[in-house]
């Protein structure tokens, strides 16, 4: 899948005196669904607008299929945008909205109308062509906007937070819809979002934008499992970041007096932090785990599918731990009610079997002593 479609090199965009994008390089492959992820103000929307032609670059080159499209105005670029607010033309019918792009390309009216019907079928809105946008629900408008931006057969489709205006249930459904359309048409998508779950579930590759630069580009698994920097580690999911210095295959954590063990060969001499994902830490003493620390439970929050715990270590460091509740909390709570005397005490938790983790963690109360353990490969070395 390394067939480059869009090549951006050394792109700089300035608004007034501030650099919105600085010296940014990015390559998008043909047919891929690329997600640009970043905080608001990171420059991800600016990058999209620069590709569409709405903001002029101060420096750099944007090439589509090897041709520099930088000098072209938006209406001459073979790139279409699906706008965050959909931007449907309120005075036109749905069919006229969809046919607008092809008509501008000189397609005859009858042919454009047939294409509009075809696009409506693609987004499962058959028979809605005669309505006005305001007669549709938000989700339907979103699909019309998608159909309209795809109708001119762009080589590249830019989607600016396409799901942000939808409610949660519809968002999941629409995600699958977008992926389905991307696979079916083979059009490259660049989708901008600030929702990391959206990015992880949809993307072929993710680009994380931070302060006008690409912080990291990679597959969802690469970006999550091997983040390039502390920013990426904490931005993609959450992570406990422990500072220290490497000692061979071990990592001496500053202040804590504990040496952590990472997977062999992972630590480099310039490793300055180790990141540990909360969901990879186990409550209890896992015999297969290379690392274990003890502390007291400082916070405990029920999150439905999991328990969010915070454990304070000896030096005051707070470790975030997430324990999945695969069987629900119900059985554990019942256990607590029926056998209060059998409540798992601090020592019992420390020595508890791994299989008993879930019940043990569920029964924990703030202030209890806790042992935490994790495997060597859960330690993610970071140098930036």
């Amino acid at each position, binding site marked *: 899948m390394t067939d480059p479609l869009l090549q951006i090199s050394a792109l700089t965009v300035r608004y007034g005196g501030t650099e919105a994008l600085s010296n940014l390089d990015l390559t998008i492959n043909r047919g891929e669904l690329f997600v640009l992820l970043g905080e608001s103000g990171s420059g991800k929307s600016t990058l999209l607008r620069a590709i*569409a032609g*709405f903001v002029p670059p101060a420096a750099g080159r944007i090439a589509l299929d090897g041709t520099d499209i930088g000098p072209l*105005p*938006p*209406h*001459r670029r073979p*790139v*279409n*945008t699906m*706008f965050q*607010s959909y*931007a*449907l*033309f*309120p*005075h036109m*019918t749905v069919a006229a909205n969809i046919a*607008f*792009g092809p008509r*501008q*390309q000189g397609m005859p009216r009858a042919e454009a109308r047939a294409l509009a019907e075809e696009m409506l079928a693609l987004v499962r809105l058959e028979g809605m062509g*005669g*309505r*006005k946008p305001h*007669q549709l629900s938000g989700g339907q408008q979103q699909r019309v906007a998608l159909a*309209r*931006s795809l109708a*001119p057969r762009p080589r590249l489709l830019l989607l600016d937070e396409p799901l942000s205006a939808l409610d949660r249930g519809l968002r999941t459904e629409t995600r699958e819809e977008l992926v389905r359309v991307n696979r079916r048409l083979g059009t490259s998508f660049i989708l901008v979002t600030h929702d990391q779950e959206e990015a992880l579930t949809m993307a072929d590759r993710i680009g994380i934008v931070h302060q006008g630069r690409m912080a990291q580009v990679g597959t969802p698994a690469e970006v999550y499992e091997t983040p390039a920097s502390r920013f990426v580690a904490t931005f993609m999911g959450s992570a406990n970041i422990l500072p220290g210095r490497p000692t061979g295959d071990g990592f001496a954590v500053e202040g804590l007096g504990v040496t952590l063990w990472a997977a062999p060969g992972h630590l480099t001499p310039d490793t300055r932090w180790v990141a540990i994902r909360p969901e990879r830490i186990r409550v209890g003493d896992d015999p297969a785990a290379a690392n274990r620390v003890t502390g007291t439970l400082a916070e405990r929050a029920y999150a439905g599918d999991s328990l969010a715990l915070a454990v304070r270590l000896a030096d005051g460091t707070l470790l975030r731990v997430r324990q999945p509740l695969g069987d629900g909390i119900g059985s554990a709570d019942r256990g607590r009610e029926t056998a209060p005397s059998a409540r798992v005490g601090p020592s019992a938790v420390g020595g508890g079997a791994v299989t008993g983790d879930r019940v043990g963690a569920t029964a924990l109360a703030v202030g209890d002593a806790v042992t935490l353990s994790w495997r060597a490969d859960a330690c993610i070395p970071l140098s930036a």
Partner: protein
Amino acid sequence: MIARRGLILAVPWLWLLLFLAGPLAIVGAIALAEPAEGVPPYTLGLSLANLELVLTDPLYRDALGLSLRVAGIATLACLLIGYPMALAIARAPEAWRDPLLLGVMLPFWTGFLMRLNAWIGLLGDQGWINAALAWSGIGPMRLLYTDTAMFIGIVYSYLPFMVLPLYTQLSRLDPVLTEAASDLGASPLRGFLRVTLPLSLPGIGAGCALVFIPAVGEYVIPELLGGPDAALIGRVLWGEFFNNRDWPTAAALAVVLLGVLLAVPGVLMWAGRRLRGGGRVIN
């Protein structure tokens, strides 16, 4: 509760009764009266002779026709000048908009007659405009007391009434719609014609009505700047009322003018509803 609401509604109703329905009824009554010597110069009655005269006599018909034509041309000129102005203000950076709008409205701070008198000075044979024309070799030419001067005066006076509703409409237009048109391959001109212009139609309608309706009955500007042959309905009406002291004919003219002016927006609104209704789908 109902009594209180009635009390509140009584205020506008009283206003309308005193200052709209009352005068209208008086004008209507005079239009149906017989002309007579004396004070007041009519005797009340139920005669349709005045209305018939006004509707059939070529003098009045021509005056009405001329007024509609002049108002129509002036409205079109206001639209052609005012639309780009309104669009430019609506698309200007946020900080510039209020000063620019103020610039459009600023002339209202001085008296209407004073501004027209300034135009007399500017347009006169010895005025600055003719001086500039003479210097550039085009002129001098007769401007004051011609149709040109009259149109300049009307367009100048009514332009803000066109710009303000257009600006209101255009500033409410989401700029992302223009971007979407451009993104879908429409050149700036095509985008304007297919998106901006149709979406500003309500503003165009409001602006045209605000210019056209008062311009039809305009008396002062043609009197001060226009030639003696510009027999607009306003001037004819004035003549009947003050020079001929023929109150019933003047009142009949006023009634007919009102009828025509009510018919114009009525027809426009009906057409607009028909046009919009075409795209509606019953579900």
